[in-house]
């Protein structure tokens, strides 16, 4: 059994255009969510919101690493994963607004963002339920020998659940090309890992399995990207799954758009610690330090901002689904 760990993966080799692309996507996800925070009170998006804010580097780093051809399963905390995989803020805001230009005419909402054709296979409101689904997709890719990998995203809370352990065993036993990506924010709603886990370290447990194990606690998108690239290479060459435990931090309440920094389960030291390594700022600073012009960054940001504005307008002016559409799509039409 080979074990690997990279607390700070080698980010030297990342080409400039990738660095910029990573920033672009990070900025997109952050600004989309800031838009949600702003307009949620207007009460036009009647859907629960599990915000990615603070954690975006995980989805962005991993999704960029697996690329357009890769497949992804998201948890209900799906915004960053969906946007990183598809960059489609139009369908995103359409779905949140419950409009016909959404990913599923509004039938899914925030917890069920998907774009099957583009490898965003689904998001689920049931903790851990997307993990087994990733196995089958990985099996299909393996059968087709198409060299693609599947990434399944889930929280640290999901690792309490039965499905995680069954799936880890199955993936290792069947040698499936799948990345288990644990977005470890230390919390399941308001409960810390330490209160839920019967072991000292999840990665130490997983290291006993026939898979590759990676850890990251930088909240740095390039570190996560590099580590995932490394993992993918080995997954494909060594023919075994990888487990990525990525420490991160959730800025907002578990569900909803409010800050709950004062809630009893929070600590202000922790909050300060993580906000000092905000993943969007980190990457912006890196770009500046590496010589990218401030103007270029601002331009990129402005472009994104206006595309988000456009997405929101498009959503607002799109139609709500008509009552008859309720009955569409229960079954697939072709038999």
């Amino acid at each position, binding site marked *: 059994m080979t074990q690997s760990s990279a607390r700070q993966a080698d980010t030297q080799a990342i080409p400039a255009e990738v660095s910029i692309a990573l920033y672009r996507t990070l900025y997109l996800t952050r600004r989309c969510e800031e838009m949600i925070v702003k307009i*949620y009170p207007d*009460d036009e998006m*009647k*859907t*629960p*919101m599990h915000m990615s804010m603070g954690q975006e580097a995980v989805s962005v780093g991993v999704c960029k690493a697996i690329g357009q051809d890769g497949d992804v399963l998201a948890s209900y905390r799906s915004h960053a994963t969906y946007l990183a995989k598809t960059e489609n803020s139009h369908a995103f805001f359409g779905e949140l607004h*419950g*409009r016909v230009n959404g990913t599923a*005419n*509004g*039938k*899914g*909402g*925030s*917890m*069920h963002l998907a774009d099957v054709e583009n490898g965003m296979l689904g998001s*689920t*409101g*049931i*903790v*851990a339920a997307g993990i087994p689904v990733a196995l089958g997709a990985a099996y299909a890719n393996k059968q087709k020998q198409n060299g693609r990998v599947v990434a399944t995203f889930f929280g640290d*809370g*999901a690792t*309490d*659940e*039965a499905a995680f352990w069954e799936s880890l065993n199955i993936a290792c036993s069947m040698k499936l090309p799948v990345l288990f990506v644990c977005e470890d924010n230390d919390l*399941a*709603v*308001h*409960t810390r890992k330490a*209160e*839920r*886990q*019967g072991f000292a370290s999840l990665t130490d447990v997983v290291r006993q399995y026939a898979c590759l194990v990676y850890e990251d606690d930088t909240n740095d998108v390039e570190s996560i990207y590099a580590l995932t690239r490394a993992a993918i290479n080995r997954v494909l060459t060594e023919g075994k799954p990888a487990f990525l435990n990525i420490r991160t931090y959730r800025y907002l*309440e578990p*569900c*909803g*758009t409010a800050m709950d920094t004062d*809630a*009893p*389960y929070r600590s202000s030291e922790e909050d300060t610690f993580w906000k000092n390594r905000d993943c969007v700022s980190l990457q912006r600073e890196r770009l500046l330090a590496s010589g990218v012009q401030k103007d270029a960054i601002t331009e990129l940001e402005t472009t994104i901002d206006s595309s988000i504005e456009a997405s929101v307008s498009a959503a607002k002016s799109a139609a*709500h*689904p008509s*009552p008859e*559409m*309720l*009955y569409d799509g*229960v079954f697939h039409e072709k038999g």
Partner: protein
Amino acid sequence: MRKVSFAEAIREALFQEMERDPSVFVYGIGVPDFKGIFGTTLGLAEQYGSARCFDTPLSEESMTGFALGAALKGMRPVHIHIRADFLLLAMNQIVNMISCHNYLTGGDTPLPIVIRAIIGRGWGQGSQHSKSLFSYFTHIPGLKVVTPTTPRDAKGLLIASIRDNNPVVFLEHRWLHWIEDEVPEEPYAIPLSQSNVLREGSDITIVATSWMNVEAMHAAQILSTKGIDAEVIDPRTLAPMDMGPITKSVRKTGRCLVVDYDWVNSGLSAEIAADVSHSCFNDLTMPVERVGFAHTPCPTVRALENHFYPNSETIIRKVEQMMDKPHMDLSGIDFYSHERRFRGPF
């Protein structure tokens, strides 16, 4: 008498039963946290200690089997789930294990287990946070199923469920939590398996479950202004169900409408309709009608959610059709009060 909310009535029942009997304990994901399952478990851990009111790992299947083991050793577990949908993870323990364990051990093994779960609705709960699953439990021998509608029933039926020596699945619609009404302060048990006539009437019998009783009562009140006198019956316990008052009512009215908070096909509404069609064959002047969820997954978007769920208007339209009345003018009537009350996020 003082008025308290349904949620508060539940909390009071838990406090009083934990006080009365040290073998009662309460647990589940998030149960002792500062939100306390929509407030229904707040303060229990502080009062009775973290050994009797505790949080758990996210492990629904195993924490359900846990209840069986504790009951076998004389404890009275109350296991709480913030959504009924999550019970689908525990079906093996509930159906394959808990429901038949008394039968398989000779028939004299008390299994005082309460599984409380909340039915979500509104604000885009969507397909995975909105199920009621009534018929999944009423179908299985050995399980009792309780669905209170009023605050008074919430307290009395929860106390009765905790004191019962059999496994009880106790399902609460989220919107009922806000309803306020008179609730006695002292502990009291309302016997299980007693249907309750919420409103007497002579023209038609409406049998409703859980939240649909609120809609049915609202509909009945509007119908009464149009000269239709509906009887509304809340079975309260869905299994074993007390069919007596229902049969008696249909014998009187000759008409029956079943309004279930679940899908219609192979649901509890089918059982009630089949049973009434059978026992009141000679009394019915027309077929038993059924109303329930549209036969689709629950959509998230409000525009479709409004058509997915039946409400008082659906009931009124059905009744006017059954009574052969012309289309009533319902303009100006507010049909979505609670839905408006609830403004997310979950």
